[in-house]
């Protein structure tokens, strides 16, 4: 079933790389293909967006989406590589509303900009925070001024 689904995706979309590991179908794709693919997935019972993650691989930043289908009982993991200096990717909020805060968190800690997000603000750190702590080259330059935090 997973292999069939993998073939369908390969026929319909431009996919750079796709492999099956355990019950996960890992798909690497370019940014432009992300939104159409997400729409297709949500129409095909992938209604559970479990996690959005950003990973700093030094040369590039990767954004990862974990999707589960309770009907098909397997995962689709979407990966998009982004430029280090200006990482931005379209938001998936219209497809899965739960992405709202998951994307805000990724923006806050990893500095990935989600284009078209309704309310892209920092969520765990204060607005005045400088830098993105989960990046590997992050140096903490924040001296907390408690007046500013509030």
């Amino acid at each position, binding site marked *: 079933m997973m292999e069939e689904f993998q073939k369908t995706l390969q026929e319909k979309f431009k996919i750079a790389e796709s492999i099956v590991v355990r019950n996960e179908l890992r798909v690497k794709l370019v940014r432009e293909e992300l939104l159409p693919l997400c729409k297709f997935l949500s129409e095909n019972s992938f209604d559970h967006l479990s996690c959005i*993650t950003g990973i700093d691989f030094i040369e590039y930043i990767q954004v990862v989406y*974990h999707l589960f289908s309770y009907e098909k009982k397997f995962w689709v993991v979407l990966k998009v590589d982004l430029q280090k200096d200006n990482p931005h990717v379209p938001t998936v909020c219209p497809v899965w509303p*739960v992405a709202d805060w998951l994307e805000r968190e990724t923006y806050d800690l990893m500095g990935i900009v989600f284009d078209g997000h309704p309310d892209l603000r920092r969520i*765990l750190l204060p607005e005045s925070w400088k830098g993105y*702590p*989960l990046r590997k080259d992050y140096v903490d330059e924040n001296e907390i001024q408690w007046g500013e935090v509030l």
Partner: protein
Amino acid sequence: MILNMGPQHPSTHGVLRLKLTIDADTITRVVPYMGYIHRGLEKLAENRRYEQFTPHPDRLDYISAMSWNGLYCQTIEKALDLHLPERVEYIRVICFELQRIANHLMFFAAYTLDLGQTTMFIYPFQEREWILDLFEQISGQRLTYNYFRIGGVSRDVPRDWPEKVSRFLDHMEKRMKVYHNMVEENEIFLARTKGIGVMKREEALRLGMLGPPLRASGACRDVRRDEPYSIYERLDFDIPILEEGDSFARYEIRMLEIYESIKIVRQALTQLPDEKIPDGHDLIKQPVKVPECEVYCRNELPKGEGAFYLISTGERPEGRLATEGGRRPYRLKIKSPAFVNLWFLDPLTRGHHIADIIPINSSLDLIFGEVDR
């Protein structure tokens, strides 16, 4: 008008600040601000060896520390492709379910306290105390247990422990009736929770709710059933479902889950195999080296679906992607259910009165160690 609530408010269950937009007494919008106890655990994980990080997941949800501790160990075991002795799996499941009972009792206590029933606040603590005593016997701790190790548990349970657990379960089952009576015949409790903060099945699924609140809205989703881990496949239990989706249903669903947990622990106790299991001291001496891989591991925690996403760059000796030869994670993402469920405060409270924020907030069972990480 804009009104500020928190961060030091007794019924926000930690440090949560809410910016309420109100029209007279009717809420039009709620904007939560959190991060007051953000400790950067994900960054911390990148700077700790695998075995050194085991106590930290306990601090995520300090009301159900066993569950997060177990999930972390399972994640590393999945990456190592490690198979555990049967007895360890059974002990883990017993601990998970006892922890679920303890968590729901704590939820119940806090919920009733928020609604002004100070007597009901103390009652569930008696049973929770009993569970803490049981955990203290096996781990030596009362709040953050750090009992599980990668590949096992820190030490085998004492010989008389299963007997004690089973005595507790008998008591717990009897006590449930008292709880039901004390709450469900209370007019104030009913008036403040029935029909408050309603979310129906389709909406809850579309917006991506998790855990007991989702099941209280009528959707049957539980990781223990849909993607079974550990030994849950062998156990016979039901997933309670309610249709109403209001604050009362979110209370009731947890009471029903306690019955199921009792059922699971009883089965696990009767099936508990008698074998020698590796000692925690020996386990901790062997360095954990994870090969190049990525693992996504999720569990049904008491508050909903939680997960760890581990990226390991393997045993490369040097270079910018090196992690001490695979002894540290390259990236460890923590997915917490309370973070997702907190988002629902805004859609659930819209159109209600300010006083209704309190039952709705409590019914979601949030914990800020886990939201802020």
